[in-house]
């Protein structure tokens, strides 16, 4: 795949010159509906923390949080609930980040120094840090927050 990309790049240089290369690594960021005002406020510092973030990381960030939201939202439709309390949700959240952000994306802790405190603050504001049962309302808030974090990653607010 890498060879194909390199070959494509060389062909573009041959055909159109160096400026054509600018478009090769372009990443199509997803289109996400803006979250509620409350959620926008909650994730404002996350968007700020990602201000210098490159497009690849933005896309990965957005994809991870969108899929986390989709997975947890589906828990509402099954008779056998997987994430019954917030401690289990926390394990899922951190595992998704560990796999997606760290292992696949290769991002080390502290790469965006303000990101960790901003995400923790958003969760604390919307869901608190209490260990408690995941009610339908709490599950909805969790999914809304994850979607808002995904939205903050694509930088549409800036």
């Amino acid at each position, binding site marked *: 795949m890498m060879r194909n990309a390199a070959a494509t790049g060389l062909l573009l240089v041959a055909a159109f010159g160096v400026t054509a290369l600018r478009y090769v690594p372009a990443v199509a960021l997803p289109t996400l509906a803006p979250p509620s005002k409350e959620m926008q406020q909650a994730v404002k510092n996350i968007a700020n923390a990602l201000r210098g973030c490159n497009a690849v990381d933005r896309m990965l960030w957005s994809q991870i949080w969108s899929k986390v939201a989709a997975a947890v939202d589906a828990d509402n439709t099954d008779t056998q609930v997987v994430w019954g309390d917030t401690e289990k949700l926390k394990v899922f959240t951190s595992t998704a980040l560990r796999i997606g952000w760290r292992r696949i994306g290769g991002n080390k*802790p502290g790469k965006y120094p303000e990101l960790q405190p901003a*995400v923790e603050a958003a*969760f604390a504001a919307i869901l608190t840090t209490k*260990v408690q*049962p995941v009610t339908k309302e709490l599950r909805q808030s969790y999914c809304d927050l994850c979607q808002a974090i995904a939205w903050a990653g694509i930088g549409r607010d800036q």
Partner: protein
Amino acid sequence: MSDAMLFGWQSDPAGSREFVASLPNPTFTQAAPGLEASGQDVFLGDYLLQCMPSWTRLSQPIGSCVGWGTALSIDILASVEILKRGEPERFGGRTLEASVYGLSRTAARGVETNRGGDGSTGFHAAKAIRDFGCLHYGVDYDGKTYTAPSSGISERTFGREGVPAQLMHFAKAHTCREVTLVQSWPEYAAAISNGYPVFICSDRGFNMTMKEGWLSPSGSWSHCMMGAGVRMDKPGGFIENSWGDCYKGTVDPRLPVQFQRSGGWVDAQVLDKMLAQGDSYAIAGFNGFQQTNMDSWTGGIL
């Protein structure tokens, strides 16, 4: 379908009258004079399933129905207090039925051992959970953890020897502040409508085949079950048994799957007569588990 229909309630009208007379608020009406049935259907099992999504009704292994009916009442009360009343507690898991059963046969009677046959009374269970508390599955009690399901051997041991002395202080941390007699359908409906579970002891038996979730009276069971719901379209109470998914026939599809064959609706008039036998109790004020906080949501990955 459960093969064994085990009971275990011991009728002692004089004993229950004496116990009830000793209560600061003997009846539910006296304990909560302003509370009435809401006029709406209420199913308290929904709260339990939100706190414990994996819950299913298992089967009592010996004649320990009093322990099972009372323990489930505690679990439902704990979940109601967290979700309906917003008490700052966390759900600590399922109550160890054997602990309630054992305490009802020993400590609540002022004896250390009880070599009599299986079984207990409602009022001794009420006294046990008020004065001595209960243990829970999955909790580490200084290296001893009970895991579900409990065996007949362990339930019988608890029933004869009581809760081990070194665990009594753990049980004492989880008492129910108030127990009060429920002796009629209106009292039952008011209790359930306001989130107070009722464990029901009577000699009323039922046919094992339901019709749209309704149980019809049949035979005699010296049995303790657990009241977890009321409905008003055709007045009745939902009574949960302790024999697993024991009922055949057609279910009430509005109920969660976990409750559809493990309990059923009982006509208000039938329930009224069961309660009039004078050994059924509403419980309130569970001293639950301290709420805990997570150190983070993302675990230092970012």
